[in-house]
């Protein structure tokens, strides 16, 4: 059992958790402000991974810079989708349940389109590249540079966004929108602008995280779906629309996964994750880490 005290294990759990947290943050932002369930979220991770791959392979651009380009590209995709498809939906008079259910199906269609366009453009062959692969030693822990960067970026960005929501005017409007859509319109918040911003930011975060993920994982047009699933598990755990809760839940999932595997068998990972997912949905759909809302 002494392996549980291994620093290597703890760092691994933190890295996974922080990546989960950041990926889920984008999904949660879009759900929180607009009640849109983005099943295509993982495909933006995939776009980010390809961006990093091509920039590195063709122009030797470091993933640290490439992730900014990936964020921009994913953000642009988000802007196109928001203004092209979703703005009108959200402005309509449809009940919120209808928008939720429809968005799930629309994003599923978008997901298929993105995946297959990518396969058409780049073939389905898996791709990989090695960048930032120098090993860094911190005490007894040894870790690849790329993963250290991933940890720093994910934690830093997540913290920055939480602070931004707390203290900036735009951030406060986002929080207001998450907490009460109709009321925020009444108090004079430019709902359309806030929605567009959240949508683009949510997409950009996924793209950016994608570059970090693509450095260490196999890149293929179909790599995104597992990340969509993980992001859903995370935001269900943290509470749909609860951003800070989601980041915490990402960490929790990283720890459950790493230590759960160390203690039992890695075989049970999926059973564990989906088991938790189902239990939370059935018992407490508002999420484990969510304070009960006063209604």
């Amino acid at each position: 059992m002494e392996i549980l005290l291994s620093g290597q294990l703890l760092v691994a759990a933190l890295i996974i958790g922080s990546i989960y947290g950041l990926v889920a943050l984008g999904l949660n932002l879009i759900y929180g402000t607009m009640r849109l369930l983005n099943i295509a979220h993982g495909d933006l991770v995939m776009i980010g991974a390809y961006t990093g791959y091509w920039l590195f392979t063709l122009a030797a651009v470091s993933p640290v810079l490439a992730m900014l380009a990936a964020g921009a590209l994913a953000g642009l995709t988000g802007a196109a989708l928001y203004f092209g498809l979703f703005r009108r939906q959200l402005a309509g008079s449809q009940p919120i349940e209808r928008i939720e259910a429809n968005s799930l199906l629309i994003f599923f269609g978008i997901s298929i389109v993105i995946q297959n366009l990518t396969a058409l453009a780049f073939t389905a062959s898996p791709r990989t590249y090695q960048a930032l692969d120098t090993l860094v030693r911190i005490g007894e822990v040894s870790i690849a540079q790329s993963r250290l960067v991933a940890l720093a970026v994910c934690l830093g960005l997540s913290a920055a966004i939480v602070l931004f929501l707390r203290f900036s005017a735009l951030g406060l409007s986002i929080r207001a929108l998450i907490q009460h859509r109709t009321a925020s319109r009444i108090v004079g918040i430019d709902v359309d602008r806030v929605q567009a911003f959240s949508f683009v930011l949510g997409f950009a975060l996924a793209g950016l995280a994608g570059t970090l993920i693509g450095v260490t994982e196999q890149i293929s047009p179909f790599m995104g779906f597992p990340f969509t699933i993980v992001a859903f598990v995370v935001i269900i755990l943290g509470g749909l629309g609860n951003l800070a809760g989601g980041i915490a839940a990402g960490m929790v999932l990283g720890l459950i996964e790493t230590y759960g595997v160390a203690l039992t068998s890695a075989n049970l990972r999926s059973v564990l994750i989906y088991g938790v997912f189902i239990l939370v949905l059935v018992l407490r759909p508002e999420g484990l880490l969510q304070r009960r809302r006063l209604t």
Partner: protein
Amino acid sequence: MRLLTTREAVPLLLVAAIAAVLPLLGSDYYLGVGFILFGWIALAQSWTVVSGLAGYISLGHVVFAGIGGYVLVLTWGAVPVWAGALLGALAAGLFALLVGLPVLRVRGPYFVILTFGLAEFAKYVVINIENALGRFGRLILGGPPLETLYWAMAALALAGTLAVVAIRRLRLGAGLVAIREDELAADTIGVPTVRFKLFAFALSALLPGFVGALFVLRTGYFEPAQAFDPVISFTIVTMAIVGGSADARGPVFGALFLVALSELLWSNFPQVYMIVLGALLVGFVLFAPNGVAGLFERRRAAAAAPAGG
């Protein structure tokens, strides 16, 4: 009351006519296409019972097909083939009854992702059971020939279509539609919502269990990751959305449309086929939420109305 209204007769006659014509073309290829077509019709009709009528959108319907297939391979050799398939259907129905009570309390988008999670959960449980048993993909040799499977699947498609037609006529159908429109109100006016939902859920699991068993017989191979493939769930939903899920016509139209599209496109442009599929889904959800069947309706309403009205 007429024996059958047009909207009831059309899908029934369509299924029967296709079933009768395909074998006349005298080629295994058409039997194969028919087998898949009827499989999708049976799945989409079953889905319609709980998701179309009651509005509980299931994104995990493959779980019932997977269970049906798994029971078939578990009982392979121990009982006759058709008894195995029947047991598969019953097991799927029983599973729906057991999980239905807690799962159907969850509503809206939570229900959608819950059904998906449930199907994945079941998949990983079966994978772990198979590993524990030391079985890694089961090969089934000597199943029934294609003709037999074809007629069995055609019967399932017809049964599914009949079931939706019948349910819509019963108090159950009206109750389910009331639940879709406003569950609280339905409860208040005395619809036994819990019982109806549970019954519909179990009913919508039976045929997929059977279909799953036939799928396994057709390929002669069972592997959990494939038997519980989420793409099957997604395809069912796409068919129902494209066809329309208000009555028995939608699934037949949707399945016909998608199977035809697939036959036309997949051979030469597989990725293009998938892209068209995705775009169709987006387009129908946004612009024709009642599917092809809804489009017919709209046109007829427009024709019936006086000019300018």
